[in-house]
């Protein structure tokens, strides 16, 4: 049987990401982008859904991340693909701020012994 649990992972201090900017965050075999916009902090998958290009060098304007390679754009709050060539939405992750520290919540699946 498989069970899923939310794992809370520490990213960095909230001072570590400037406004309208992002950082790359790698955890185990997964890579993410963490954004700081006027609306708060957000987290998405690190790679653009169009081609295998990391978004870490992309531009954040308002709540939109623009891929540095082909300028596909995504809303970082929802992951929604906003303009071609990006057609597939980005996966997003819940973010929490506790004592000025940023955490993201990742759903993890564990195998549990059958009853």
């Amino acid at each position, binding site marked *: 049987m498989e069970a899923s649990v939310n794992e809370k992972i520490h990213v960095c201090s909230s001072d570590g990401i400037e406004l309208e900017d992002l950082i790359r965050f790698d955890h185990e075999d997964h890579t993410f982008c963490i954004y700081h916009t006027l609306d708060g902090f957000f987290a998405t998958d690190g790679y653009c859904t169009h081609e295998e*290009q990391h978004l870490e060098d992309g*531009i954040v304007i308002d709540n939109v991340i623009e891929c*540095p390679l*082909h300028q596909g754009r995504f809303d970082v709050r929802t992951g929604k693909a906003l303009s071609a060539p990006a*057609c597939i939405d980005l996966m997003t992750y819940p973010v929490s701020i506790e004592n000025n520290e940023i955490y993201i919540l990742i759903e993890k699946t564990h195998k549990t012994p059958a009853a």
Partner: protein
Amino acid sequence: MAERFAPTNAASSSVHIDSKVIRPLRQRRNGAGLVFLLQWGIGLTLTSMLVWLALGSGWIWPAMTIHGGLLTLPAYALSHETAHGTAYRTRWLNEAILWFSSILYMEEPLHRRYTHTNHHTYTWHQHLDSQMPFDLPMTFRIWVFEIAGLSLTRYHIVRLVQMACAQYSPMIRKVVPQDELPRLTRNAWIFILLYTIIAISIFLGQNWLLWFLVLPRLLGVPIMQSFTILQHAETAVNSPSILETTRSFGTNWLGRSLYMNMNFHVEHHLYPNTPFFALPALGQALASQIPEPDPGFWRTSLELVSVVLRRSLGKSTRARSIRQAPQMITEGAIASTSKATM
């Protein structure tokens, strides 16, 4: 498994800049692009007056050439900058100006954007770069066709008709996402309709379109092409390093203004999402890692002509003052080593 191609950029060129330095340089603004539009508008008004004053005299041709240069080179530069999305922070403004400038430049905006992003991914790579406009090495004949704009104009017209007929070349299918192809066709029809309206208007007696738009646009092409041909001519083919495939050159304030700083072309290819107004500062930040720009526009252009002329005459083509890839130094009879993709 085949190794994945690394896009040609700063990383593939072993160039590095601290993120704290590049971040402010990449910030987009509307102001600089709007000032450019205002200056361009004022300049075009003045050169239009020049054409108007010269109507009916032999001065009409030089006047239209000056007006055409001011019309064509900034149209190219603005179309390029908006295709990157870096001219204006406001997205709709950027896209509107992309359309306007691309109509003047005569290339459908989506085709412009996607072939150009491909050019950045595969800069000057044989068969992969969709914007290699001429066969290599360049001969004098090729140079003449390029400078006169014959090759480019033919390419634009053929591509426009092909896209309107939904005939997509393998390169288009490769660089443009499948979902975008119908939009390419729709836009191509809009372009053809606009150009047809202009042609019919002239036929019906609206001659001002001829004197102020069509003829200057054609006469301005050599000025535009004189700048753009310097971007990659005589540089290395199939190199992962932008420092080897691309040229920056010096030019005065007028050249920099009309060309939107694209003479900082190495810098532009290393960090393509840096807006035009930040390229001089980027050049300063990278100065220790990139080659010195080639000498001024005139000297670089004259040396290029000299090189291609000597090549056509079968003489040694070693350049004296401009950067040149060793593979471009030829002597005697030469064979084409790379075919144009435009």
